[in-house]
């Protein structure tokens, strides 16, 4: 089991999501974060004040996957998030000690294997 953490450009987030769904990765969490990765800064001016934006907006994907899913997940993000310019982001693959699915108490690999939704529309 691994946790794949990907930091991507906000404008690429939708494409990454699409690529992940196409690669059958169904469980993930995203958050808006800010970070610094050595890209050229944006310069903005408000009235007389000129500022350099040292922190760039990024979108962070947290994806818990079983081992054989690491490769397709990483490949999906790599292809979808790349522009070739500095600032495309990073992918970290971290070992995971334990996973639980809260609803059922399932553990580890069972907890990150998606269930087939049987009846849609039940509230």
């Amino acid at each position: 089991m691994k946790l794949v953490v990907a930091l991507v450009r906000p404008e690429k987030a939708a494409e990454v999501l699409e690529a992940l769904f196409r690669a059958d990765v169904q469980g993930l969490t995203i958050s808006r974060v800010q970070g610094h990765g050595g890209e050229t800064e944006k310069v903005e001016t408000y009235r007389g004040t000129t500022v350099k934006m040292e922190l760039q907006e990024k979108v962070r994907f947290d994806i818990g996957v079983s081992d054989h899913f690491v490769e397709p997940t990483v490949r999906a993000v790599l292809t979808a998030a790349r522009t070739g310019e500095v600032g495309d982001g990073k992918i970290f693959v971290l070992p995971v000690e334990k996973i639980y699915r809260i609803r059922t108490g399932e553990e580890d690999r069972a907890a990150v294997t998606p269930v087939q939704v049987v009846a849609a529309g039940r509230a």
Partner: protein
Amino acid sequence: MASTVSPPDVAWMLVATALVLLMTPALAFFYGGLVRSKNALNTMMMSVCALGFVGVAWALLGYTLAFAPGSAFLGGLSRALLSGVGLEAQGTIPQLLFMAYQGTFAIITAALVSGAVVERMRFGPYLAFVTLWSLLVYAPVAHWVWGGGFLAKMGALDFAGGTVVHVNAAVAALVAAVVIGKRKDYARQAILPHNVPFTLLGAGLLWFGWFGFNAGSALAANGIAALAFANTMLAPAGTLVTWTLLDLVRTGKVTAVGAATAIVVGLVAVTPAAGFVGPMAALVLGLLAAFPSYFALLYRARTRLDDSLDVVAAHGLGGSVGALLTGVLASKAWNGTADGLLFGNPAQLGIQALGLLSAIAYSGVLSFLLLKGIALVAPLKIDRQHEGLGMDVSQHGEEAYADHDGAVLILESSADAAVPLGALATEGGRS
């Protein structure tokens, strides 16, 4: 034509001019709410800067091309740089006030076009386009209808600018959307409004300003102004009701973006009719005007035409329906000028159609040539990378909603690049 200035008319027209001017910032909110947050400022600036650029162009040349005596197609240059535009009476108000009032129309008309090119047109070429468009397209068409040009002589009825303003702008918008091309994410990703309350605020302020637009077009504080005023209240109300019911029947949910759109469609549709039709006719006109625009919006979203904020569906169709129905519903009993089809004058409908077609053809061709001309000097469309980043940062160096964590002040005197990361401004109080 009366040659004395009437103080009550002056008082009303001063207010009406301010009301119409407010419509352009209102449009900024209406459009601004409909785009993504990274393009909010750019979209609003497209309207705001029209206040300046078109306003100046109007004083220098636009007014004379539209309203100075000239040929059937274009005004002369006798009032260029406002020469001879003083406090003498034009109708019953000073010509200077007439000039200012008409200027606010030129500004909002040019700004309307921006709805078709938001989120991708470079700002410099946009400014060049709206400025030149107001002179080369808006001013001549205004002359045809209001400046004693050939449509005026034929008896075309366009009370406050259904054809001159709305159809004219919509055709230019259609051409611009085609020439500039679609946004890179169009029909590939969901592109959703970032602030629907802004759009509702804009629609409300547009309605408020539109009382100056329509009732002010009487150019006097008289009964026709009152008629246009009441019609401006009734028609959008009708459109809003039809639109709401269509939403309910089709999806079971009444949408806020739909309501805001309905208000604008109703206002557009009643614009050419406002001072020519009775109040119940205006209500019917409003009720009917919802149908073509409603279904055109649904259809457009499935096409490859990225008329991003549906200028064609709202203003083009709304304006056309209004112009044609004016030819049907106009009533001499109310306006003292002309009857429409329903009151035994079918020829009026033909004249209305001819007016529409003239404006569509002229605006289409000239807008196309103008855009192609500007494209020879500078690219019209932003490159994909900056489009992805957002127009606010790439065109204006500002952001609508940045929290500015990590903003480092650049001081004129210091070597700005030397600021270490540890000196980050933490505006949010984090440290």
